[in-house]
């Protein structure tokens, strides 16, 4: 056998295990146009469903007439709330403990809300039917501002007010007003207020983190197929959490879970958009049951931007206190969170504001307090984690802006202010004032590496010269240096405090080794471009000693995959990656017994070495994993069952805390408001690195989504609740032309509690990138008196800042 003569180095290389930039196994089919996305699915007799949507943001529905629509050739059915009500499906539970209408039940609460579902032979007939559904509306006052909502007499959710006008408590405790959803607190209020009241220096700032949208290139959709003969429902769809969807469908439909098969085929990007359960899924299932045929529903881009899964929309007010020397003593944060018409945020149950309480960031802040008020408005529901763990982008933006604002107040360099407040390496594991236990970190090393690499002092000198030149009329371009140091909190999470709708947030892996020494592993997660089929095979290769090329990874079919909570919040590597390693170790433990038997020694006399077990002290005596796999199936071994399989359900003991140091250098033309990114340096520490090529790709992509959000991407409403950014004409997605090249770098601080020390990386660049781009814009104007301006920093807003600062005079 060839591998018996290879050197140990060759054997390691042949494994293609952890740490190597293995090429992706997914790419052959994608580059040839042979991906299988949900809209590619075509079944015999398949129908197409589409929605009649509300043009109004707040209105009562006085009548719906479907007669004309039903006469359209090809239209088979039109579902309204009245049809769903007998089934109890006109409303459905949200992931946040609220409920939302599946189809408008007497009124609509946001523009684009689903009013009726037209089922037709194809999408053209469905569109014709939609045109002819007559809906009469009676307009109601529209509220798009959460502060106004909390003062207004207008009741948005009549279903949440008692007949006597009382306001019953919600899923997260008492409500202060009929448009109020919850108040959520973390930390110590009185001590924090006292520290701030008596502090030497206090900086205050209010900031609005605007509403935006994950906008994956593939919109949401599904195909529901109810087989009435067997009583089985199959549901294909763009699901980031297929098992959770199966359980939710079972709970709300009454179909037993074993009769439901949910399949996530290839997914064209998720970024949080595809976590939730949407009316389109429910209506497709009902329509399939009613018609007895498969029903497909696919959002168009306007549907997607207007109705499924907005992100952010946080109005944040902060106070940060420090000594004159810059040592931070306290932090206070209040958030007014605009959740839209229904509270459909995708957060773990106990965290209605997600992990916003990571907002003390990377700093050793002794006292802190956070209060979040959730509010209903006439905007679309959602509140998903757009390329971040739950609300972490908001938290990191908040603290990284507050640090800059404090630096201005102290007249101190912002890099130095960060340096003197970082949590020190020896303080880990570190318990933050708002409760989280950070697993590991070495912030000072990362920061110094970043600042040295970019020649930070040189950049500051250049910037000072630029300001002089600008004042002297020699240039019209300012220079901004954006800094950010972020700590993420990912890998949700420990079942003791993390669940969604009561489903614990563990994850899983099941491995079967085939007799000839190849394998299949199935996981509870689902890739949306992250390359799981490539990287999870690498984890296994290193754990079980079979080449990654001999391991198939399969995800997304609930009939075959073990139960898991899916892929979002950078949880795949921290949770399912851990399950994969643990399942691999179970395989290895049995393989050790088989090897010892075959080598006629005691179990403890053999040890694992790359791809084999060797007799200790006699490396020429060994059995490769391939030989062991064959023996496992084909040789009677006393005391051992045949076969080589394992399954692991992994409940993580803690979150993981990736971190990073980013620097952006930007030139800004004050007369056009156009920012030009000259340099972007990103150092990421995601613990143990599984595939550097894929990590870098994730960083490039996350930074580009950060650039989009910071510099222009926005879901904007007018006063009537009309969405002003409903197509890609108005909703900013950067093209190759607007995006710079990024420099990536890393340090490695493994997670001490994760079996392979990995922390997750997919979302870090977005979390750290947004404040970095924003800080660069703000920093350019700092010498002229700017403290803070709100994102998105599009050309017009940058121009306006320059104008307000008198730079056009």
């Amino acid at each position, binding site marked *: 056998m060839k591998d018996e003569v290879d050197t140990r180095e060759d054997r390691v290389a042949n494994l293609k295990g952890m740490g190597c930039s293995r090429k992706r196994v997914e790419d052959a089919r994608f580059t040839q146009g042979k991906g299988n*996305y949900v809209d590619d699915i075509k079944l015999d007799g398949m129908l197409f469903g589409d929605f009649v949507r509300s043009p109004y943001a707040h209105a009562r529905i006085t009548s719906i007439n479907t007669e004309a629509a039903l006469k359209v050739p090809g239209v088979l059915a039109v579902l309204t709330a009245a049809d769903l009500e007998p089934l109890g499906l006109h409303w459905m539970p949200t992931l946040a403990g609220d409920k939302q209408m599946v189809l408008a039940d007497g009124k609509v609460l946001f523009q684009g809300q689903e009013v009726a579902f037209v089922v037709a032979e194809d999408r053209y007939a469905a569109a014709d039917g939609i045109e002819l559904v007559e809906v009469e509306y009676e307009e109601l006052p529209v509220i798009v501002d959460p502060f106004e909502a909390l003062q207004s007499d207008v009741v948005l959710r009549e279903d949440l007010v008692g007949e006597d006008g009382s306001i019953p408590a919600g899923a997260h405790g008492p409500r202060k007003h009929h448009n109020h959803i919850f108040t959520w607190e973390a930390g110590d209020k009185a001590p924090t207020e006292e520290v701030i009241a008596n502090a030497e220096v206090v900086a205050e700032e209010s900031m609005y983190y605007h509403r935006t949208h994950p906008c994956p290139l593939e919109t949401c959709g599904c195909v529901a197929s109810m087989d009435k003969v067997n009583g089985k429902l199959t549901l294909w769809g763009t699901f980031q959490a297929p098992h959770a969807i199966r359980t939710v469908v079972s709970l709300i439909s009454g179909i037993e879970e074993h009769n439901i098969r949910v399949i996530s085929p290839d997914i064209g990007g998720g970024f949080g958009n595809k976590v939730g359960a949407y009316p389109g899924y429910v209506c497709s299932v009902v329509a399939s049951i009613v018609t007895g045929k498969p029903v497909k529903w696919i959002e168009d881009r306007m549907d997607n931007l207007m109705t499924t899964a907005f992100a952010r929309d946080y109005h944040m007010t902060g106070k940060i206190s420090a000594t004159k020397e810059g040592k931070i003593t306290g932090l206070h944060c209040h958030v007014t969170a605009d959740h839209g018409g229904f509270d459909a945020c995708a957060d773990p149950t106990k965290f209605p504001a997600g992990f916003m309480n990571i907002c003390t960031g990377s700093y050793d802040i002794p006292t802190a307090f956070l209060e979040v008020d959730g509010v209903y408005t006439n905007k679309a529901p959602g509140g998903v984690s757009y390329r971040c763990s739950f609300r972490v982008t908001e938290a990191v933006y908040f603290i990284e802006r507050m640090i800059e604002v404090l630096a201005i107040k102290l007249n101190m360099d912002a890099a130095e202010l960060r340096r003197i407040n970082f949590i020190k390496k020896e303080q880990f594991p570190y318990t933050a004032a708002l409760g989280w236990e950070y697993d590991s970190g070495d912030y000072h090393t990362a920061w110094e590496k970043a600042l040295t690499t970019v020649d930070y002092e040189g950049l500051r000198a250049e910037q000072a010269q630029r300001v002089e030149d600008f004042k002297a009329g020699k240039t019209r371009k300012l220079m901004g240096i954006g800094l950010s140091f972020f700590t993420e909190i990912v890998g949700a999470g420990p079942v003791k405090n993390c669940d969604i709708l009561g489903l614990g947030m563990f994850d899983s892996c099941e491995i079967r080794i085939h007799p000839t020494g190849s394998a299949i592993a199935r996981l509870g997660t689902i890739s949306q471009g992250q390359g799981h089929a490539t990287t999870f095979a690498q984890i296994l290769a290193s754990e079980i000693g079979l080449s990654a090329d001999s391991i198939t990874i399969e995800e997304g079919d609930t009939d075959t995959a073990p139960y898991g909570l899916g892929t979002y919040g950078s949880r795949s590597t921290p949770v399912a990656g851990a399950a994969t390693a643990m399942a691999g170790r179970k395989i290895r433990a049995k393989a050790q017994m088989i090897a010892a038997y075959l080598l006629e020694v005691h179990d403890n006399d053999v040890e694992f070495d790359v791809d084999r077990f060797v007799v200790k002290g006699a490396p020429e005596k060994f059995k490769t994993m391939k030989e062991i796999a064959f023996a496992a199936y084909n040789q009677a071994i006393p005391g051992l069952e045949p076969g080589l399989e394992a399954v692991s359900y992994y409940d993580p003991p803690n979150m993981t805390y990736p971190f990073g140091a980013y620097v952006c250098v930007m030139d800004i033309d004050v007369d056009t408001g156009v920012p030009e990114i000259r340099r972007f340096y990103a150092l990421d520490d995601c613990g143990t690195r599984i595939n550097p090529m894929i990590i870098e790709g994730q960083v*490039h992509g996350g930074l580009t989504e950060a650039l989009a959000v910071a510099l222009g991407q926005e879901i904007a409403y007018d006063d009537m609740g009309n969405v002003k950014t409903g197509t890609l004409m108005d909703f900013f997605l950067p*093209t190759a032309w607007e995006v710079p090249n*990024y420099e990536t770098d890393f340090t490695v601080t493994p997670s001490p509690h994760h079996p392979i020390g990995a922390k997750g990386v997919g979302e870090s660049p977005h979390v750290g990138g947004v404040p970095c781009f924003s800080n660069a814009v703000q920093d350019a104007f700092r010498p002229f008196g700017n403290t803070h301006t709100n994102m998105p920093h599009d050309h017009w807003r940058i121009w306006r800042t320059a104008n307000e600062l008198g730079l056009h005079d």
Partner: protein
Amino acid sequence: MSNKMHIKLNVNGKDEEFLAEPRELLIYTLRERLNITGPHIGCETSHCGACTVTIDGKSVKSCTMFVAQASGKAVTTIEGIGGPDALHPLQEAFKEHHGLQCGYCTPGMITRATKLLEEIPNPTEEEIRFGMAGNICRCTGYQNIVKSIQAAATEMNAAKEAAE
């Protein structure tokens, strides 16, 4: 909508002939009538380029073209560019340089890039970024797409030189 039109198309070298409503968009002809699912739908407004095909030597966004407008013309999709037995150098390069993640934009991206490299066989980075600006990718940040196209250009130019 009974006034159907007689359409003749050549798709990836194969002649197709059928009756279609005047309002039928080319992307649906390809995806639903002909089961050619490489080109994808991303925006319906010509912005994202996931539906890019080549028609008579030009890159076209098939989500905003009626099939009637393409009648009599030759259409090439990703399926006509390279397959398992002979990948196009761009397909090889995208795999080699991690030029894709979720894969949804990839067929349109590669289809567009084949034309770009015909228009400019040896493009600068700036020319690639400008020439690809009609195709949106949400995953990669474009850096590795640019790299992939550069690598394919080098490969194709070397092959051409060797052949001469």
